[in-house]
């Protein structure tokens, strides 16, 4: 294919806009390294005059950031384990079993995915209240141990596995559950890893639900803690930016390692529709 025009203008547009896209991150980082006084200087300095790395230490003293981190990590892992457990079992039933009621349940699941959060938020809160779970880890974990999208995603994948495999397992006397555990799960590893990444991003960034079901500082996940911190320390910009940097850093690292997987699976979910 002969090119009818040069790609140079394309690169120029992409780079200029790319700088614009990156600028907020750059500003976050430089502000995080400034002294409070320098951060308020106008016109601002594009490069910190003194690198105040101690902002990243001070932040842990000003606010229970470490606690928020540990809470988020604990919640993310616990709910992920739940999502995988419920997801793999349900997907297996939907993909590889024939039984009465299967399709009806499947349609119900599909419909549930369309219901937006506010519709079930108020009553869920009351149910959690009745259970005495408000302001506990259970309220942050248990309702999120099912991810309907995960079930669909795994079902799609399990459907592509060849039937011969299952026939062979059956002939060899391998039971249903053992087939799932020893054949289906190992073969679904890429799909499971993709899902795990999605789920971790989701729980790391979730805000609305934890905002509502937590009241005490010791139970708060990172995003909620950060949000309240931003209201309290609304003018200490270096500390605010240091906290924001730390809050997004783990996901940016994850993103760099699993970039292909994340982008491709986002793209694929778009195409599935």
């Amino acid at each position, binding site marked *: 294919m002969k090119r009818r025009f040069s790609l140079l203008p*394309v690169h120029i547009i992409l780079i200029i806009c790319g700088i614009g*896209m*990156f600028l*907020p*991150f750059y500003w976050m980082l430089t*502000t995080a390294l400034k002294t409070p006084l320098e*951060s308020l*200087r*106008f016109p*601002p300095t594009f490069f910190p005059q003194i690198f105040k790395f101690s902002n990243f230490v001070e932040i842990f003293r000003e606010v229970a950031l470490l606690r928020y981190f540990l809470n988020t990590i604990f919640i993310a892992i616990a709910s992920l384990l739940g999502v995988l457990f*419920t*997801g793999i*079992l*349900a997907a297996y039933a939907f993909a590889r*079993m*024939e*039984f*009465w*009621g299967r399709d009806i349940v499947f349609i*119900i699941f599909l419909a*549930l995915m369309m*219901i*937006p959060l*506010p*519709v*079930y*938020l*108020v*009553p869920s*809160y*009351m*149910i959690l209240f009745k259970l005495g779970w408000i302001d506990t880890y259970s309220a942050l974990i*248990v*309702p999120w141990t*099912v991810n*309907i999208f995960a079930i669909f995603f795994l079902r799609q994948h399990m459907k592509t596995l060849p039937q011969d495999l299952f026939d062979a397992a059956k002939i060899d006397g391998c039971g*249903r559950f053992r087939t799932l555990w020893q054949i289906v799960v190992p073969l679904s590893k890429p799909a499971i890893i993709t899902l795990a990444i999605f789920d971790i*991003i989701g729980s790391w*960034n979730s*805000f*609305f639900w934890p*905002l*509502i079901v937590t009241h005490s500082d010791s139970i708060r996940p990172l*995003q909620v803690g*950060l949000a309240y911190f*931003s209201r309290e320390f609304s003018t200490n*910009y270096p500390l*605010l*930016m240091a906290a*924001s940097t730390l809050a*997004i850093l783990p*996901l*940016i690292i*994850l*993103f760099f390692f699993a970039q292909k997987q994340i*982008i491709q699976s*986002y*793209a694929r979910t*778009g*195409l599935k529709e």
Partner: protein
Amino acid sequence: MKNKKLKSALTGFAYLTPALLILLVFRIIPIFFSVRISLYDWGMAGARQFLGLTNYFRVLQDPVFWQSLLNTFWYAIFSIPIMFILSLFFAILLNQKIKGLGFYRTLYYLPVVTSIVAVSIVWKWLFNPERGLLNYLLSFLHVSTIRWLEDPRGIFTLIFNPLHINLPTILNGPSVALCSVILMSIWKGLGYNIVIFLAGLQNIPTAYYEAAKIDGAGRFRLFRNVTWPLLTPITFYILVMSTISAFEAFAQVWIMTGPPAGGPLGTTKVVMYYFYEQSFELWRLGYGASIAFFAFLIILALTIFQRQFLEKRVTYA
């Protein structure tokens, strides 16, 4: 025979039980429960009084509800088309077999993986009227200080007032503050749409383009008659997703605006925030449940409308 059927159903449901149980308690029961709550004056201590449909009528007569709906409407009207055009534009640029595709894609995608809370804090700082980076950069272009998140004036008013045209309140447009929130949300969501458009573009077989070229189609005709029709399923998906996310905008408002959040003068109080405020700050749970239902009905109606509207033009490759 019947026994075998029963047995297979039991096994099947055994596998579904963990998921079903959680969904039953935290999704299915709440949805029905929500209907009941909306029929009561329901406070923190429980149901106080049966009201029938009164909550729904009150919501419809509530000027703040209509204001929040208008704010959400402006949010959607501005963010969806701008994001749509920009992301399609960048996706087309990235689809030209250029060097550094991975680099650019990462750059534009970065805001998508970061948390809305953190980036809202960062943008609030960028928007700071006296010390913020944006006003500093704009000062080079001789733009006078913009009070971004603090300015309640509608942007249509700002455009038309110098021409001595007075607009009715409803046409004031989104406030400068709401536009600032929209700007941030576009920045945050752009990469997601680019990646989906890009995948759609890469899915179009090159044979179509070659055939069209042989027939003498120019660049514009190629886009109009090949790319655009084959992209319709993606277009539909992006429109539906952006509509839903416009209605779900919440954290941005909670963090960036105010105090009190939703300000200045309630011009950034979107539906989701109003729902939150009524339900979980004022603890008017019955009223909140009614607002949630209206929001759900609107999202549903819009999705069906988009489906109907686009279905006629959808060309599946």
